[in-house]
């Protein structure tokens, strides 16, 4: 188990692809290096999409939680 804190939250519940990733991209742009964003989704595709999003954007995906009716992700913006 890992403990960490987050600096910002984004609610993507009820949104379908591409909106969760689109909104997350905008939220990441507002973060500083080293800050963590917590994102809540209900699109089951997000479990596949967020690891890919993090890889493509060079973000650290600290955790991906499948809570059944929702998926929660913690992304850290790395230094450019």
């Amino acid at each position, binding site marked *: *188990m*890992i*403990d960490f804190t987050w600096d910002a939250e984004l609610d993507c519940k009820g949104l379908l692809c*591409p909106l969760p990733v689109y909104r997350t*991209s905008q939220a990441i742009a507002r973060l500083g290096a080293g800050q963590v964003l917590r994102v809540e989704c209900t699109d089951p595709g997000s479990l596949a999409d967020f690891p890919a999003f993090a890889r*493509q954007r*060079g973000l650290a995906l600290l955790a*991906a939680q499948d809570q059944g009716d929702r998926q*929660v992700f*913690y992304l850290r913006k790395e230094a450019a």
Partner: protein
Amino acid sequence: MTAAARAPAPAAGREEPRERTRPRRLALVASKGTLDGAYPPLILAATAASLGWEVGIFFTFYGLDIVHRRRHRKLKVAPVGNPAMPVPVPNLLGALPGMTAAATTMMKGWMKRARLPDVAQFLEMARESGTKLFACSTTMGVMGVKESDLLPGVDIAGATAFLDFAAGADVSLFV
């Protein structure tokens, strides 16, 4: 705020090299002028832009209607020749007056309920993210579409200019 969580399993895809000399690039050809044909390229473009990719879409043949000032708001779904309609409509009935309008209204209703942007909103997202929108000049000539008929931010280009852009692409798709 704190959280306790298990670390995510390593992603299935291949690892990205840490240092890329240039961003990835997506080149799309949008050739369909139907409502259902407009969404896939617009969704792919919005997704790729979110990933930090460069994106260009070449709108050709009926796909040109997607960036037509008036027609982009009037794209339709055809029930004729479409066995995938949720309520299967025999072609003979699908050809009746009003059936295309009914299918179009139905699809717009699904999109709204799913809280997906409409075509105009997706185009706005594309422009905001710097997606290149190319209008096929041959199609414009064939179909009598003038520069003033195009949405703002759309560039007129031939296949040569698009291929020049696509030659540097990592992913190219014909939709």
